Structure formats: structure tokens, C-alpha cells
């Protein structure tokens, strides 16, 4: 097995963030919300506060760790929702064609015409800000790309001999879609899913930064960035570390996605020279 830098580095980074999130209670030094001591406000990084403290005197290191939980939850869950919607719509549209394909295409075109972040913003403005609303907003607005992908894969796969054979053997349409088509198109979908997770993390950061995502005092990396706006020049570490955390997570997910794409490439046909 060749050493695939993308895959390994991406996996390590992503795993690091996951571990930070899962073990936050044990790795953190303080409670991210409650332990706020104005005495230690805006302290630079040092031996006691590894990443320094923010304007409220909270330990940034602990807040970044807990923030991982939120970002990962949003990233993974919302992308999962996106993938399920996209695959269901795209796969069935590509396989059945006809009027259903027209409907799905129309829907997808509409979704693509609206910038997803604005759409999510609008939804968040209607719903009460919070984690669940965030998941709904992001989960319902980012499925277009997966849908297109699933549809294109379905179109190209449905004329393969084994799909026709399945029909001739008496398989029903749903069974064919699930057992013959889906397993053979997973590769690109997983890759897009991984990359989409990175996008979701960024979207959450943006929304929280704008005050429409996770509200303070809960430690979301985005809201931490928002809080740090006034202290950018005086206490830059307050924005640097959450920003770095976002960067590392998204970079890790992108590299992971890239690496997965390399492995999951359809098996090369037996080459006949």
C-alpha cells in the first residue's frame, strides 16, 4: 500500500479533533461556560491558561475543546441529512427518469440558485437559534450537489449489464436501486460527504459569528470569533485559537476526502494490453 499523505494526514487531523471533542470533559481544565473569572480576563497564553483567556476570563483552551463537540455534531449530522436527502432524490430521479426526474431537477435548480448560506440564514432567522435549528437549516439546504452526483451516477450505472440482469431476474425497482446502484456509487458520495462536512463546519462558524447559530455563552468556535472582534489587536489569541481550530478541522476533512477519493476509485478493469 502506497503511503497516501492526504489520507493519513487528514485522518490524523480529523481523529485529533474528534478525540478532543469526545474527551473534552477530561482534557479541559475548566468548565467552558461557568468558570469565568474577570480577574484573569485577557491573559496571554501561559502555563496556566494554554491558549490564554478571553474578555470574560474564560479558559480558551477548554472552550476550544468543547467547541469541537458542537462543530463536529453540526458537521457530521447536517451532512448526513444532506446526503440522505440528496441520494434519495438523485438516485430515484436518475433511475426512473420521466416526470419525477423533471421535478427533482427543478427543485435542485432552485436550490442551487439560492446561496445555501443565505438560505440557512433565513431559516435560522425564523427558527429559534440553537443546535437543533442549526442542524435543520444546514441539513435542508446543502443537498443539491449530492443529488446531482447521485443522479449522474444512477444514469450511467443503470445501463450496465448487471442492472438489466437484475430486472430480468425479477428484482423490483427499489431493491435494484438499493442493492445494485447504491453500493456502486458510494465512492464519490462519501468523498463529497466528507468535503461537505468541512463546509458545514465553516457554515456553522459563519452563522454563529453572525449571532444566528449557537448563542453565547456556549462555546462555538464561530461565536468565539464573534466575541473576539473587539480584542483582535489587543488580545489576538482570543481569535487565533478558535480560528486555528476551524482551519485544522476543515483542512483535515478536505484531505481525508481527497485521500478517500483516491482509494475508493472504482477498481481498475483487468487491463488487457
Amino acid at each position, binding site marked *: 500500500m502506497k503511503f497516501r499523505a492526504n489520507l493519513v494526514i487528514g485522518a490524523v487531523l480529523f481523529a485529533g479533533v474528534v478525540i478532543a471533542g469526545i474527551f473534552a470533559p477530561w482534557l479541559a481544565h475548566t468548565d467552558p461556560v461557568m468558570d469565568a473569572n474577570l480577574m484573569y480576563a485577557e491573559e496571554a497564553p501561559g502555563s496556566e491558561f494554554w491558549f490564554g483567556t478571553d474578555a470574560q476570563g474564560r479558559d480558551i483552551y477548554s472552550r476550544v475543546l468543547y467547541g469541537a463537540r458542537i462543530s463536529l455534531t453540526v458537521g457530521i449530522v447536517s451532512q448526513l441529512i444532506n446526503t440522505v436527502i440528496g441520494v434519495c432524490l438523485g438516485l430515484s430521479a436518475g433511475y426512473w427518469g420521466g416526470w419525477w426526474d423533471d421535478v427533482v431537477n427543478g427543485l435542485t435548480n432552485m436550490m442551487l440558485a439560492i446561496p445555501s448560506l443565505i438560505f440557512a440564514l433565513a431559516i435560522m432567522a425564523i427558527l429559534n437559534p440553537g443546535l437543533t435549528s442549526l442542524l435543520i437549516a444546514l441539513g435542508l439546504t446543502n443537498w443539491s450537489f449530492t443529488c446531482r452526483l447521485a443522479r449522474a451516477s444512477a444514469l450511467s450505472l443503470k445501463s450496465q449489464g448487471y442492472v438489466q440482469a437484475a430486472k*430480468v431476474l*425479477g428484482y423490483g425497482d427499489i431493491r435494484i436501486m438499493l442493492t445494485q446502484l447504491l453500493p456502486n456509487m458510494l465512492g464519490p458520495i462519501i468523498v463529497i460527504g466528507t468535503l461537505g462536512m468541512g463546509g458545514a463546519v465553516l457554515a456553522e462558524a459563519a452563522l454563529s459569528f453572525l449571532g444566528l447559530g449557537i448563542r453565547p455563552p456556549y462555546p462555538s468556535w464561530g461565536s468565539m470569533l464573534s466575541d473576539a472582534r473587539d480584542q483582535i489587536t489587543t488580545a489576538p489569541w482570543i481569535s487565533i485559537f478558535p480560528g486555528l481550530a476551524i482551519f485544522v478541522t476543515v483542512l483535515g476533512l478536505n484531505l481525508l476526502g481527497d485521500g478517500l477519493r483516491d482509494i475508493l476509485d472504482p*477498481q481498475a478493469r483487468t487491463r488487457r494490453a
Partner: protein
Amino acid sequence: MEASYGAIIMNNPSADTILRVEDLAVHFPLGGGLFGGPRRYLHAVDGVDLELKQGECLGLVGESGCGKSTLALTILGLQEPTRGRIVLAGHEVSGDGMDRKARARIAQMVFQDPYSSLNPRQTVRRTLEAPLRLHGITTASEIDERITEMLGRVGLRPDHAERYPHEFSGGQRQRIGIARALILEPKIIILDEPVSALDVSIRAQIINLLLELKETLGLSYIMISHDLGVVEHMSDTVAVMYLGRIVETGGWQSIFTNPRHPYTRALISAIPDPFKRSRGDKITGEIPNPLDMPSGCGFHPRCPEARDICRVPPVPELEKIGASHFVRCRRVREIAAPDVPLATTG
């Protein structure tokens, strides 16, 4: 006037007919309609009558655009016919006559390309097992037995069942495809160019296998092929198609030693003879655009024997000119029969 082939099939079905196709047509609508002018139709299959007898192999011959693949897909239920009847083993299947599962137990297909006809993510076992389960055979021991038996019949070993398609050669994959087609014990198999995608040196293995299986399992075949040598070797009866119609049909001997339709003769003489340099009847030109079907006999623009009578509608009937030999040509009796067999070997 001798009865037409279609009338004979409809009125005198013989007892051992396992597949009957009556006046089958498949027309694909293309463009036109509402704002684009008159609706245009592609007559992929244009009034085909066929009869397959139990235990027989019917060779379906023709060049691209003749409709042989569409015909096969329609018989299997993968394509809706525009008109006509299909009767499979006594059951009428056109329209909503029969659902997919019931049809699957009567007619199956072996596909042309062994590299895309197997699901790359499934082991051989899963590929063979799933249809059994779907059709109600669920006991592990019975499934095992059937799979092992079927693999043996196609010349593979039981341990091959645990492997994935990419671990096999083209010929072996084709064998797996044959095993899959047989696993439900159908009566009719449609073979779509079963050996054209295989290396020349292994074609004989598959041809011999298919003939053996036909004998031992009592199968009936419809074999689609452009390779006339293979068709002559394997078929009992032959049907030649051109532009969606059967232009000649008969026993293999009649077709190959006494072809009467100019197109059939052109096809046979187009095969390069390894022992001679010369060629018999030549036809020129290309297969016409099937959207613009020539009037009357569709072959007249390329036919060396065409006269005015050939261009006039209606389309000529498939007429009987010998025992089980039918030709769709108004001038068939005037065109001399070949006095020398067109193809010779050594």
C-alpha cells in the same frame, strides 16, 4: 398465394412452441409534437412475427439498427412494445399480463459484455444467491446445493463462489453470467452476442458450453449475433432482420446454402473468405436513417435486384418459398437461386 409467415404463426401454433411473437412493433417517439412539427417515430421493431420451438436455437442476425436488440429487450420485458403480442410458454405477457418475477422464471438473458454484466461489489455467491432468495428459495442448504451445482455445470469450482468479478478472466465472467441466467431454471435464454467480447481462442469453450447446456437442460435459445459463422454453427433456425423487419427466415441450412433475399446473400458474401479473394453479390451504400424508411421494401435503395415494383408500398409480406423458408421480397421467384454455395471452406 402462399400464406404469410405471420398468418401461419397465429393460426397454426405447433404444440412445442415455447415463444411466439405476433406482429410486434416498438416505436420510439422522437421530438416533434406540439411546436416542433409532426411527431416522428423511430420504428425500431416494425411488425415482427417469430416462433421459437422447444429445444431449438433461433439465430437472430442483422446489422446495427435492425432492431434485434430492441426485440430481445421487449421479449424480456425491459422494453414496452407499441403493438403486438408476446406469448411465453403459453402465457401472454404483453401488456400487464405477467409481473417481473413470474417472467423471470421463464426467460433469462446472457449479456454481451462480461466486464459490465456482473455487479463488481458482489461476490459470485451473492450474485447467484440473491435471485434464489427473491424467488422464495431460502433454505441455506438448498441455496448452497443449487449454487454449487450451477457453478459445476458452467465449468467453475465451488470455491469460485467467494470471489469477486474482477478476479476472473473474461471467459470465466461469461460463465458466471451464464450461471446466473440459469439459476432460476428458465426455459428460454436470450444470448446477446455471447462471445463477441471474448478472446478468439476461448470462444470455442463458451460455444461448446452453451450447446451442451441446451441439450442437458432442455433449453431454448434466441441467439443474437453478427458473427455468421457462430450463427450457422449454433442455430436450428435463423431469422435475418433489416430495419426492424424480418426479411428472411428458415432452417439454418436453407438460409446458409440457399439464401434468397438479396440482403441475406449480401451479408453472407460480405464475410471474408480465407480461401478466396473474390466476393459474390456486393451491396453498396449505408444503412438508411431509420427515421426515413424507404417506401415499399425497405431494402430497395441498396438492392442490386431492385425494380420499380419494389419501391411501391405496401411493405412486402414474408412469403413461403420452401418448407419453413420465408422471404420478404416481391421478386424472390425471379431472382435466380445461387447455384454455387456462397461460402466454402477448404
